[in-house]
């Protein structure tokens, strides 16, 4: 079942074709990895689908509904959420409030001015539950700005996850952390995402991580798709291997 589809999506920055007429498909329930060297257009594709950027041409369809020209708010309502490569948190708010704000926003409760946020037991329970799932239950009262890098990456995903999206984009959820932490973060993220039946698209450079956690891998190169298949198929693909070996794998 196709959840999201793009039809010849174009985006050009000056002379650089970041998205070269892409037909991208995300199936319901899969854990998909987008790989490729720096500048391959992965983040641009995610930016287009999440309405962070507008495409030059092409269409974005969510279950056959054209969402190409909808706003960020509308896309979030439709069930598309994302995290960011460079951690994007509310540093002055507590860890708890970061996630609670997501829940408040999703439920349309941020208009409430005459009620204490902490008194909303439903939101409270849900935020604590999400934080527990991401292993941050012991940090709820800490300001988000005071977390360690690995925890910040997890919180960044948790904030997006708390929007209860159908389709979750994670832009390098393990960038900037040690190899050891990478596995921990991905274990947590993949188990929560799969447990919540959320379809996920992950941008990732570490091929060990990609092969281990993905159902499907899509490889990009200079704004186009180079390969698309299961981890085993990608492993066996000679062209992919040469690109991967020829291009730097990390930021």
């Amino acid at each position, binding site marked *: 079942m196709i959840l999201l589809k793009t039809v010849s999506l174009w985006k050009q920055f000056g002379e650089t074709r970041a998205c070269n007429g892409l037909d991208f498909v995300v199936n319901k329930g899969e854990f998909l990895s987008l790989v490729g060297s720096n500048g391959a257009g992965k983040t641009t594709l995610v930016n287009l689908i999440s309405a962070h950027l507008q495409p030059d041409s092409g269409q974005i369809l969510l279950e056959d509904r054209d969402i190409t020209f909808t706003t960020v708010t509308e896309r979030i309502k439709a069930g598309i959420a994302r995290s960011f490569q460079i951690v994007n948190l509310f540093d002055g708010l507590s860890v708890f409030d970061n996630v609670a704000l997501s829940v408040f926003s999703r439920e349309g409760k941020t208009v409430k001015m005459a009620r204490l946020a902490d008194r909303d037991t439903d939101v409270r329970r849900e935020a604590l539950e999400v934080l527990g799932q991401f292993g941050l*239950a012991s940090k709820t009262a800490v300001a988000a700005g005071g977390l360690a890098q690995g925890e910040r990456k997890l919180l960044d995903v948790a904030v997006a996850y708390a929007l209860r999206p159908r389709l979750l984009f994670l832009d390098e959820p393990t960038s900037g952390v040690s190899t050891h932490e990478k596995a921990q973060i991905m274990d947590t993220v993949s188990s929560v995402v799969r447990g919540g039946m959320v379809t996920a698209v992950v941008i990732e450079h570490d091929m060990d991580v990609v092969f281990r956690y993905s159902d499907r891998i899509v490889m990009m190169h200079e704004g186009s798709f180079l390969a698309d298949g299961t981890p085993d198929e990608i492993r066996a693909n000679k062209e992919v291997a040469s690109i991967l070996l020829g291009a730097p794998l990390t930021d």
Partner: protein
Amino acid sequence: MTGANPLPNRSLLKLVAAAAPVLLVLILVPGVVGIYQLQLVIYGLIAAIAALGFNLLLGYTGLLSFGHSAYFGVGAYSVAFVVEHVGPHSMEFYLLVGIPIVAVTSALFGYICVRHTQIFFGILTLAISQVVYSLALKLYWVTGGSDGLRVPRPALLLGLLSFSGPEGFQQFVRSYYYYVLGIFVICVILMWVIVHSPFGKALQGIRDNEVRARFLGLRIRRFRWISFLVSGTFTGVAGILWVPLNGLTTPDVLYWTFSGEIVFTTLLGGFRNFTGPIVGGIVFTYLRTYAVASTEYWQLLLGVVLVALVLVLPTGIVGALSRAGQRLSKRNAST
């Protein structure tokens, strides 16, 4: 402080425990001090309300308004107009008429200003307030020009308390003190609830990270606009309360230097703390009064204080005190 989020009931209890002694002192003040001092405390409370409103924008929404004199002044002038053309000399009536006028003005000007952020926002607020100032100065047949408008002493509590005769002014100040204190308490509670509401959390989210806030589905501009509206209205209420005590409103309260004083007040107390603007309002009122009384170079003195403040106490009085308190409790815990 690690571990679970403090329970909501406990944090509320802590607040009440901290506020009760302060409130008690404030209630007892008129028994101890003379009329002049009492007037100063009233002015301090009014400045605190103005700064409290201003800080919803600066501290909680991340927008520096340099034109909050406009809302204070519109509050004061709307009362003066009411007195001159219609209506009874009743404080409740002043508030009833003044608050909607201030709210509409804030909504209107805010709608324009929140189209921009940062320095552009600041300049817009400044420009609009200067337009209002020029109007007050030039339309003298309405506003009295630089002479301003007189506002007689109102009756309080629906005419229950009225003040005339030789002791009228003293009686008025004593009663008015409790009146302002009451409204001050209401304003503090209202603002406390607002900044701790889901709406307030959203404002702080927008302050910390606009991009992420947008990707939670928040409509940034609308939040900033409502924040502006509430902020301007609080500052306007301060203007409404100020004018009967001062007995007169002049274009001075619309001039940009008065906006600067509101900024100063908030920085002095600390814009990162809820209580900062309140402490700032009272301290600044005393600071300025004594500076004016002790030297003709009082503006220079205030300037030096401002420079020292930015260099030495960037988090303001409350920020520095709370840091010192944390250090002390840490030391106690370690020994």
